[in-house]
C-alpha cells in the first residue's frame, strides 16, 4: 500500500483509492465500511470502504478475508495483497484522518466530536464510490456506537441504498472484513512510517500499541512532552490521557473561548494589554479611570503611554 499522498502532508486528512473495477460500474454492488485506530492516543484514524458486485460476494470469501482484529499484521498484509490481486472485481478507498485533524476538530470552537467526524468520513467515502460510478445497492457498516441511529442517518443521506449497520459487522460480512483489512493495513503503515515534522532528531519509535492504557505509550508521551507545546502532531491532544498529562506537567494555556470561572477570567482579561508589561499594578491609574478611550483605540487595544 502506497501512503505517499498522506506522507507528503501528514497534518491533514487524506484519501487513498484503488482503481474502480469496470464491472462495478455496470453491475449492482455491495459495499462495506469499517474503521481502524479509533481508540489510540497516537496516530491517524483510518476509515475504509471496499466494494464488489453482489454477484461476486461468494468469491470474496475465497479471498479468506476475516475480521482484521483476529489477524496478525503479517496476515493482514497478505490479505490486503489478495484484495489488491482481485482488482478486476474489488475496489477500495480510504480516508486517513490525521491525529492533527482529530485534535483540531474535537477541540474546535464549535466542537466536532469523534462520532460526527467518523460518520462524515464514512458518508464521504460512500459518496465517492457513487460519484465514481459504482452501482451501489447494499451498504454494510461496522459500528461501535448505537447502530439504529447511524443506520437512520446513512439511510437518510443515501435514500436509494439498503443500509445495514451492525456491531461486529467486520466478522459477519466479508465485504466489511475486507474494508477493515484495508483500513488496518493503512493505519499500521502510517504509524510505522510516521515522519515527524517537528525537529526532534532521531525519534524513539517504541511507542507500544498507541492505546492510552499501554505503559509503553504513556512512557513515550512523557518522553516527548514539552511543557509549552505539548506533543508532536502524532499525538491526539483531545484524548484525556494527553490532556491530563498536560494539566499535571505542562504550562497552563488560556484561550478566549475557555469555559471558566468569571472571576479568574476577568482578572486575566485586565492583563491582556501589551502595555501591562509597563504597568505592574494593573487596572486603572488615578486619572485613567475618569478618561474613556475612543473606540478607535479600544478596538485596537491601544493605550496611551503618557498615562503610566
Amino acid at each position, binding site marked *: 500500500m502506497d501512503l505517499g499522498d498522506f506522507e507528503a*502532508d501528514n*497534518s491533514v486528512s487524506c484519501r487513498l483509492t484503488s482503481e474502480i473495477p469496470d464491472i462495478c460500474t455496470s453491475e449492482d454492488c455491495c459495499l462495506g465500511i469499517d474503521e481502524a485506530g479509533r481508540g489510540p492516543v497516537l496516530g491517524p484514524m483510518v476509515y475504509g470502504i471496499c466494494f464488489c458486485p453482489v454477484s461476486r460476494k461468494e468469491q470474496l470469501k475465497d479471498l479468506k478475508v476475516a475480521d482484521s482484529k483476529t489477524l496478525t499484521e503479517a496476515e493482514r498484509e497478505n490479505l490486503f495483497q489478495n484484495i489488491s490481486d482481485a482488482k478486476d472485481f474489488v475496489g477500495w478507498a480510504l480516508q486517513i484522518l490525521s491525529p*492533527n485533524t482529530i*485534535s*483540531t476538530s*474535537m*477541540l*474546535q*470552537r464549535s466542537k466536532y466530536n469523534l462520532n460526527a467526524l467518523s460518520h462524515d468520513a464514512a458518508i464521504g467515502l460512500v459518496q465517492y464510490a457513487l460519484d465514481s460510478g459504482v452501482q451501489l445497492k447494499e451498504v454494510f457498516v461496522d459500528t461501535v456506537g448505537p447502530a439504529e441511529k447511524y443506520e437512520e442517518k446513512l439511510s437518510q443521506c443515501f435514500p436509494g441504498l439498503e443500509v445495514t449497520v451492525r456491531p461486529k459487522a467486520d466478522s459477519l460480512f466479508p465485504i466489511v472484513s475486507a474494508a477493515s483489512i484495508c483500513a488496518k493495513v493503512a493505519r499500521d503503515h502510517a504509524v510505522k512510517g510516521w515522519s515527524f*515534522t*517537528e*525537529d*526532534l532528531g532521531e525519534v524513539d519509535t517504541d511507542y507500544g500499541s498507541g492505546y492510552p492504557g499501554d505503559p509503553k505509550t504513556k512512557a513515550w508521551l512523557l518522553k516527548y512532552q*514539552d*511543557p*509549552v*507545546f*505539548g506533543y*508532536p*502532531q502524532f499525538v*491526539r*491532544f*483531545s484524548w484525556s490521557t*494527553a490532556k491530563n498529562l*498536560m494539566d499535571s506537567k505542562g*504550562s*497552563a*494555556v*488560556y*484561550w*478566549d*473561548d475557555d469555559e471558566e470561572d468569571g472571576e479568574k477570567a476577568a482578572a*486575566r482579561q485586565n492583563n*491582556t494589554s501589551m502595555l501591562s*508589561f*509597563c*504597568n*505592574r*499594578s494593573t487596572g486603572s*491609574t*488615578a486619572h485613567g479611570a475618569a478618561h474613556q478611550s475612543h473606540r478607535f483605540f479600544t*478596538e*485596537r*487595544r*491601544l493605550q496611551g503611554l503618557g498615562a*503610566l
Partner: protein
Amino acid sequence: MACNSSVTHVQLSTMGKAERTTVHLMPCEIEHNGSAQVSQYFTSTIKDRKQEKTVSFRGRGLRGAELSCPQGYTGLVLKEVNPNGSDQEDRTVKVSSTFDKLTYWNLETPPNSDDMVVMAMDWPELAEAIHGAVED
C-alpha cells in the same frame, strides 16, 4: 489602591547589540516565562498555504499571516534588567531583540484586515496626519 508613579526606562544603548528575531503573536495566554522550543515544535510544523499560514498549538488550529511593522518603526523585545524590583521603584528594561515583521495567529479564523493587530498598525499614519507639523 496603588498609585503607580514609577517610570520605566528603556536602555536604548542596548539596541545596537540586539539581534533580529522572529516573533509570533499567539491568540492565547501561555503561563510560561522563559525560553521555549519554538523551532523544534512550532516553526517546523507551519504550513504555508495560499494566502495564509496554518499551524496547530496544543491541538488547536491556528491560521495566521505575516505583518510588517509600520514604515519607519522597529519592533522591540524588551527584557527587565532587574526582574525582582518592587512596584514602587523605577524600572529599567533593555532591548533583547528587534523585529521588523511578526506572524500573528488567529484561533481558527482566517487572517483578515479587521484583525486587531492589523488595525493597530493604522495608528502611526493617522497620528502623523493629526499630530504632525502642518506646512502652509
